[in-house]
């Protein structure tokens, strides 16, 4: 995000804001670690485009509103919870922003663990799988699809009750709901983790929870094996997309022969190209996981 507001801008706009530290930023959002009403929380600040950009401002507002709405209803520990700051808009240095807070989760994003090259144990891989599918179960219960499950959006917390927590429902899709992406726009999401069907022009017709199961499967595969099953380092994204659409990924057991066959087959099944060949829903995965264990 360009035009990240300064800590002073934020302090003057948000009452009870204590210490603040920038963490990261994405396309239209910046995240800070902040003291809010005496608690450490993740402050999220969204840049709102000027009103003359037709529809863009409303679209972003609606997305954030949806994210807040969904997080507010979630009842699982495996999804990040809302913080104390309710959504508010403010202006700083001539730009309009929307701010709200989520709980702050100390820990590392799973992508950082992958980059460190540490080979996780079977128990840790199972734990990630279980947390992801529990989170998806809750998102599904609320009639949504996450659409951006990836190792960057999962925090390894080292808290026994919730070892992995899914973040960022910013592009969650409400089934049978209002469209929040511009007509004709491509699917939002991160290409490396997007299910093959989402690259189709009619992707909204085929979108269901199995697309999230695919993304979760790719994330678990990458975490377990240390490499993405289809992307190759240094290659351009179009080649990767071709692989996602056409190439059969290697079987997980070839990269992690120490993991049980049955578990490897479960992850391989999550990343099948045809949704009908994946698990029907996250509960089906969890049920088979419990049977296997």
């Amino acid at each position, binding site marked *: 995000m360009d035009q990240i507001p300064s800590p002073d801008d934020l302090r003057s706009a948000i009452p009870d804001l204590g210490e603040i530290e920038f963490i990261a930023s994405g396309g239209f959002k910046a995240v800070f670690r902040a003291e809010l009403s005496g608690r450490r929380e993740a402050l999220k600040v969204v840049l709102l485009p000027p009103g003359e950009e037709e529809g863009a401002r409303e679209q972003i507002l609606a997305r954030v509103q949806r994210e807040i709405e969904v997080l507010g209803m979630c009842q699982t520990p495996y999804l990040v919870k809302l913080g104390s700051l309710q959504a508010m808009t403010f202006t700083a240095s001539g730009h309009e922003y929307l701010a709200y807070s989520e709980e702050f989760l100390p820990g590392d994003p799973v992508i950082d663990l992958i980059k460190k090259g540490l080979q996780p144990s079977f128990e840790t891989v199972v734990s990630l799988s279980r947390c992801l599918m529990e989170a998806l179960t809750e998102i599904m219960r609320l009639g949504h699809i996450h659409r951006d499950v990836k190792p960057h959006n999962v925090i390894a917390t080292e808290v026994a009750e919730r070892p992995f927590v899914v973040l960022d429902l910013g592009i969650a899709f409400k089934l049978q709901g209002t469209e929040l992406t511009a007509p004709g726009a491509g699917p939002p999401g991160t290409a490396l983790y997007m299910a093959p*069907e989402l690259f189709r022009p009619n992707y909204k017709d*085929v979108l*269901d929870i*199995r697309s999230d199961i695919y993304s979760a499967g790719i994330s678990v595969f990458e975490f377990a094996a240390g490499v993405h099953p289809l992307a190759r380092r240094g290659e351009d994204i179009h080649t990767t997309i071709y692989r996602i659409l056409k190439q*059969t990924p290697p079987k997980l057991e070839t990269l992690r022969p120490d993991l049980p066959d049955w578990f490897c087959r479960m992850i391989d*099944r999550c990343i*099948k*190209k*045809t*949704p*009908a*060949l994946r698990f*029907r829903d996250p509960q*089906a995965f969890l049920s088979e996981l419990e049977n296997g264990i």
Partner: protein
Amino acid sequence: MKVFAQHGHQPSDKITRGLEEGAIDGVIFSSRYLNPDKVQEKLDDAYLANPAAEILIDSEFYASRLKGTPNSQLGYLERQSYLKTYRRRDLVRTEVVERALREVYQSVRYLPVTAHIAPNIYVSQSFDSMEAGIALNFIERAKSVFGDSKKPVYATLAVDRRALLSPSDFLSFLNDVTALGTAPEGFYLLVGGGSITERSDLVQSEIMDANVLGGWMMINFSLAQNGFKVINGFADVLTPFLSAAGATACATGWWSNLRTFSMGRYVKPEGAGGQLPIVRYLSKLLLNRLRIDELSYAAVVPGIINGLSSDDEYLNGIPGRTTEALQTWEALSSLNSNVSDQLEVSLANLLDLIAQAYTAYSTLTTYGITAGYETATEYLDQLSGGIEVFRRLAEI
């Protein structure tokens, strides 16, 4: 991996003996050949033969499209009030679909079947069609209409082979079916060939096609992966292939029109009819049927005789039709022993069976027995090709 009888014309004692002798695990009764006044009696006979038998009735609702056509041959279906002429534009309406489902349910709800087969239309061309949309609606509503019986419900999915030749359309349909909110316990799957409006002798060769077999296996596989039971009607010698892909049961009968499905079976034959087909023997080794005189080939390839209990009656003269049916079911059950819980093992076993059949045919040619060699090996090519197509579709 069960074997069921596909009920049809002239059942005599075939089904009861099949059940008594353990050659079959159940039966799919045909409403076309089931006298409505004697249904209870027929079902009782089946239970008496084997109290554990699975008993189902196919309403053959898909034959509705032939109702009222001058050359149709619908048998007892003519007495079923649910069999009506429907216009396609009416069937797109959910209330019409629900009414059709209810009418079939009313006709079977008090019968002592072990599970219900919910009706559907026949998808005659493509999965990217209005027919496919209607079929999906029938499947989605099946459980809610039939569900109060507390018995398992199998939704019919009856498709023409041509629908399996466009993988993208048919995979999209599978994606939709496996995502339905209200789903039945299983599916009664029919894959048909030939013409819809006339009788055809080409049905078997049309079904014995690599793409059709691969697609048929894929439907079984994806449905089974999603926890559905799949009963394949008119599967005959494809039984071990469909079982390997995840089928719960496969059915076959004693006439050729009970071994491969065609909508043409509901059309009167031209002319006065022909001779009855001769009695044949299903050889496990050849994965094919032989005439009685061809059993003498066992002198050079002993393996063409199955070594099963029903062989004796063949070796002592020309057996009756009941024996022929029992022999088919026994051979298919035995072929199913090549199917394992592990898909890769099953597919490897099936490829071994095909290779053994090639070898047997080649051995016969070295003894100068060349009749039918090309047809037989072409047929085996299609079977092995079907496994390859299936592997590709199932991403194995």
